[in-house]
């Protein structure tokens, strides 16, 4: 068991809590940088996709995991990011200028959507974002001048730093750099007063309000920041897919993002990466399941949503803290060995809380 002896207040907000952290995370980054030496193009593509999913997951995690606001229409932000990026690139705006514009546009869209609907709480917000997701999908279909409608929109793959996005090694590095940058940005937002306000709102709106947190402002800000991260992921996703069609950004993608953060572990940035790895490899997992099941069931197209639902229900009921929560338990088991008590993580008995006044 490691005890951190704190001698300064600033130690509480250090990014790395101790030297062990520094060592392991540096090692992880080194391994990630060295990966193209050992892996072939297919796996690099998969890992790039996981990086993109992680960035989108960070966006949704800030909103749902840290501010406690559910969004069932987050694919809309991916769509906004992807279409804006493709539109800008088509109009000969260079990559390094397009990305900041995408981030700003998604931030503004998030704020514009956030301000009117954030007077709503809980379920109403979930329903409203669900409806907005549908409306956004519809806008992508109908606004043909901008999105190409159902015909779709090819994404230009420009040169950047003298390299092409068709090169999977280069694309992998781009995604990796953006993931690390997004992770640092998210960590820094979350240890700033803004992030603390988000967590306060999640844990108790009344307590946050009485401590002087402006609920409306911070909820809108959370929505906007979340939109910015997800929009960035959308821009990268546009490169990954190569050809945008409106039905990519449907409700199923929104729910996949939710599955990502639930499986990864609500309220932890580690969880976004774990969740992204899980969601990224889910299709392969399902393909493996198909092989083992009897062919009458295995060949059915309904298997995918069914497994999707089963995983979601399983995690909500039995492991609400997700993969990261399980990881914490295993870690604690070894740290406290042999005195680990199962009761440490026992679910507390809770009663229905009423939203009614």
């Amino acid at each position, binding site marked *: 068991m490691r005890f951190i002896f704190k001698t300064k207040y600033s130690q509480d907000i250090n990014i790395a809590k101790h030297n062990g952290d520094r060592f392991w995370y540096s090692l992880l980054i080194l391994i990630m940088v060295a990966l193209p030496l050992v892996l072939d193009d297919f796996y690099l593509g998969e890992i790039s996709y996981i990086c993109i999913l992680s960035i989108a997951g960070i966006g949704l995690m800030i909103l749902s995991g840290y501010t406690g606001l559910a969004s069932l229409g987050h694919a809309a932000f991916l769509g906004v990011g992807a279409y804006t990026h493709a539109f800008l690139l088509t109009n000969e705006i260079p990559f390094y200028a397009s990305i900041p514009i995408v981030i700003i546009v998604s931030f503004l869209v998030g704020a514009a959507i956030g301000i009117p609907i954030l007077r709503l709480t809980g379920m109403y917000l979930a*329903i*409203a974002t669900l409806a907005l997701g549908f409306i956004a999908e519809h806008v992508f279909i109908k606004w043909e001048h901008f999105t190409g409608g159902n015909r779709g929109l090819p994404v230009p793959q420009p040169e950047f730093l003298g390299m092409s996005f068709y090169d999977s090694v280069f694309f992998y590095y781009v995604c990796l750099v953006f993931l690390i940058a997004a992770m640092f940005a998210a960590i820094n937002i979350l240890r700033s007063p803004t992030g603390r306000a988000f967590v306060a709102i999640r844990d108790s709106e009344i307590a946050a309000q009485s401590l002087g947190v402006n609920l409306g402002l911070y909820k809108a800000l959370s929505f906007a920041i979340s939109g910015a991260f997800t929009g960035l992921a959308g821009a990268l996703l546009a490169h990954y897919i190569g050809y945008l069609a409106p039905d990519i950004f449907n409700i199923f993608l929104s729910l996949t993002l939710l599955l990502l953060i639930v499986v990864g572990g609500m309220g932890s940035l580690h969880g976004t990466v774990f969740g992204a790895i899980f969601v990224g490899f889910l299709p392969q997992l399902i393909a493996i399941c198909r092989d083992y099941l009897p062919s009458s069931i295995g060949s059915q197209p309904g298997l995918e949503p069914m497994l999707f639902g089963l995983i979601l229900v399983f995690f909500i009921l039995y492991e609400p803290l997700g993969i990261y929560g399980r990881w914490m338990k295993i870690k604690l088991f070894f740290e406290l060995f042999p005195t680990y008590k199962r009761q440490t993580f026992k679910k507390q008995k809770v009663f229905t809380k009423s939203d009614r006044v």
Partner: protein
Amino acid sequence: MQLIQLLIDGIASGCIYGLVALGFVLIYKATETINFAQGDILMLGAFVAYSLIGILGMDYLTGFALTVLIIAVFGFFLDAVVVRQIIGQPAFATVMLTIGLGFIFRGFASIYWGTDIFSFSTPFSGKITEFSGLIISYVNLSIIVGTAVLMSALYFFFTFSKIGVAMRASSENQLAAYYMGIPVKFIFSLIWSISAGVAAVAGVLLAPITLVDTSISLIGLKAFAAAVLGGFGSIPGAIVGGIIIGIVEQLCGTYENYLFEGVREISAYLVLILTLIIYPRGLFSDKAEVKKV
């Protein structure tokens, strides 16, 4: 004349939205959770009816009654076994749980029944009646009459029967109901079973119009608009909201040229967003007021 014709079609489809919304409202009033799988339960109802009437060749009314019974029992155990476990968790958990359940139902339906589009014969299919120039199909008539009958049955149930009063008591104040000796957990499961049964009724009534396939579960999403418009927590509000949504959709579809292209498909969602922004309490809200920041 054309307008009245549109209104009748709108009311018929609105009744379906209203019935699904009624399911949301019953569960929300009692347990403050929203069942995002309501549309999928409707779909299951339609499929079970297809199995009983279309495949086993049962009489329409017997099949109808048996379907509602099966789905109601299913709804009871859905709450007793699964949903009850997460009482007291944040709203987010219930939302995710019921969405996950919806996916399971849809996946199950497409594995068990297949992804084809099915239909079964009803006494109403293909028959119309003319009434001073208006053309009313029997199917629409059956939906409107069915909704009216169900609503009055529910009204009498909640007003006069002992269990109905116990249900109202449990949704007013759980703790007080507990102290009065009402088996609140059992009552909640019963409410789930009623709302599943109502969804099954909607599914069977809807089956002749949309036919039976897994995509009809999307009706559940439009029914949210009905429930929100009616004030989430009011039973008459759900039906009135549903009828308004149905009429708005019909009107938007007909006058699409004057508005913008594709307005019909998103009109329900637009109404939903506008209601939430402008008047989030809804038309018929009682005490269950939306908290404002």
